[in-house]
């Protein structure tokens, strides 16, 4: 009967539950919900992709040409890579926050948005890359072009070097031949 007294007392205790859609639970500020990447700070260093236990971050970068200037990140680090693809598959993410700590420029962090359910699973694949596919293509092409030029330049340089060596060798050979001729001339005189 003691138990009955308790439950009866609880009849008058005000309720603890809240009505979810109208009243929302205030989130703690360190809460770990949806990932967000601030793209203009991202230098494409792939630290977060390496730290992720479920590898749900895929990054592809293209080296920028020395001529292009990509500007600086907020804390003054020079950016050298075009980030053509930065996908986070939030459906696979286990919200462990291991990717937030190694990021040098702190551009990846967890926001407190928790209502991001989707109907299609593909929508959960967040694409953070700022370059449109066309731009990405273009960046890749001119990088390949640049690469090709460098190759060509190197090959050319190599040939020149080889040519010089050959020339030098020929010159040396001729000199030797002349000396032999001089010797023979001296012999003849």
């Amino acid at each position, binding site marked *: 009967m003691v*138990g*009955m007294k*308790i*439950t*009866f007392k*609880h*009849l008058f*205790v*005000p*309720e*603890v*539950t809240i*009505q979810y859609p109208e009243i929302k639970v205030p989130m703690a500020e360190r809460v770990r919900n949806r990932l967000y990447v601030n793209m203009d700070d991202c230098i494409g260093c792939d630290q977060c992709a390496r730290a992720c236990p479920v590898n749900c971050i895929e990054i592809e970068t293209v080296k920028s040409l020395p001529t292009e200037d990509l500007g600086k990140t907020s804390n003054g680090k020079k950016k050298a890579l075009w980030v053509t693809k930065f996908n986070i598959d939030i459906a696979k993410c286990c919200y462990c926050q291991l990717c937030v700590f190694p990021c040098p420029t702190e551009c990846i962090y967890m926001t407190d948005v928790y209502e991001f359910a989707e109907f299609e699973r593909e929508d959960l694949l967040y694409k953070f890359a700022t370059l449109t596919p066309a731009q990405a293509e273009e960046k890749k092409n001119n990088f390949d072009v640049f690469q090709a030029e460098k190759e060509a330049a190197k090959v050319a340089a190599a040939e020149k070097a080889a040519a010089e060596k050959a020339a030098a060798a020929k010159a040396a050979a001729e000199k030797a031949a002349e000396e032999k001729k001089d010797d023979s001339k001296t012999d003849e005189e």
Partner: protein
Amino acid sequence: MYDIILNITGSEILSMIISAALPLFLFILPFALVAVLAERKVSAFMQDRLGPTRVGPKGTLQTVADILKLFQKEDIIPSEADKKLFNLAPILVFAGSFAVFAAIPFSGAYIGTMADVGVFYIIAISSLVVAGILMAGWASNNKYSLLGAVRSVSQIISYEIPTALVILSLVMLAGTLNMYDLTNMQTEYFWNWFIFGGPATGIQKILLIPFMVVGFVIIYISTLAEVNRTPFDIPEAESELVAGYHTEYSGMKFAIFFLAEYANMFAVSAIVATLFFGGFQSPFGYIGNLLGAEWMIPIEQFLWFTVKGLFFVFVQMWLRWTLPRLRVDQLMALCWKYLIPYAFVNLIIIGIISLI
């Protein structure tokens, strides 16, 4: 009521059926709707939560929403189930639990049937439910419901004996089986109720009080078990047998089982209120005859009857959300080793006292 209908319809049988069936539609169905919501609200407040608040203002239309949902749910019949029994079971359980109301006096002016064997009829009809449950358990061809059905059958049958014994001791004292006369005996003030010794006078009354209280406790516990409620809800123990005999039912059949359970709950608390707490008698006189308006009394009596019934229904709900569940053999032990011997002793002592 019966004679009013008689001169309207003129035929004997028709008026008998109408007057017996009237409480079913006018009172019990709306009560069942309210009871389902009340149970969820009471349990919610006891557990510091709100209960249904979405449907209708503060959740009042929740049960209507439930019934509509159950209506359009598909009526699945398991493949190897025994079709005839499967469909017959809910009807039997529904009929059994609603037929009881024919003999309960709702108010001075209204009683379903002026049956002289009132109480005896009630005990007989309520065991019809047992057949229904056994059919449901066996027909749904599922081990869990078979276990649930066998348990609930043994439980209901074994708990009818203490109920019958206590009613016997009461009827012996009152001398009549008719519920209407029983209630009239407990007229006027509440110390005339049977729990306080009934209409007897002097030494006999004082002697009777303790045994009447014991009798009330026994009958309350055993009727609880008969309705599969609170500590005895083993047949549909969620954590062991999933949902006992009505696991395989869905849609309308499940709604019928559900309503039958709540109707049974009210029926049982009405019987206990009528037998021990003076059915529709008001504890301290009627306002009707104070103001001299004769016609108000039956309405007042009906109100008192409903208040007492609801109070006992509330106590059942209160028990359900406080006490854990008994095991089957403990249940049987409680019935055979404690309730029945006490009921017998109680019967004998009351018999001796009534001889003085």
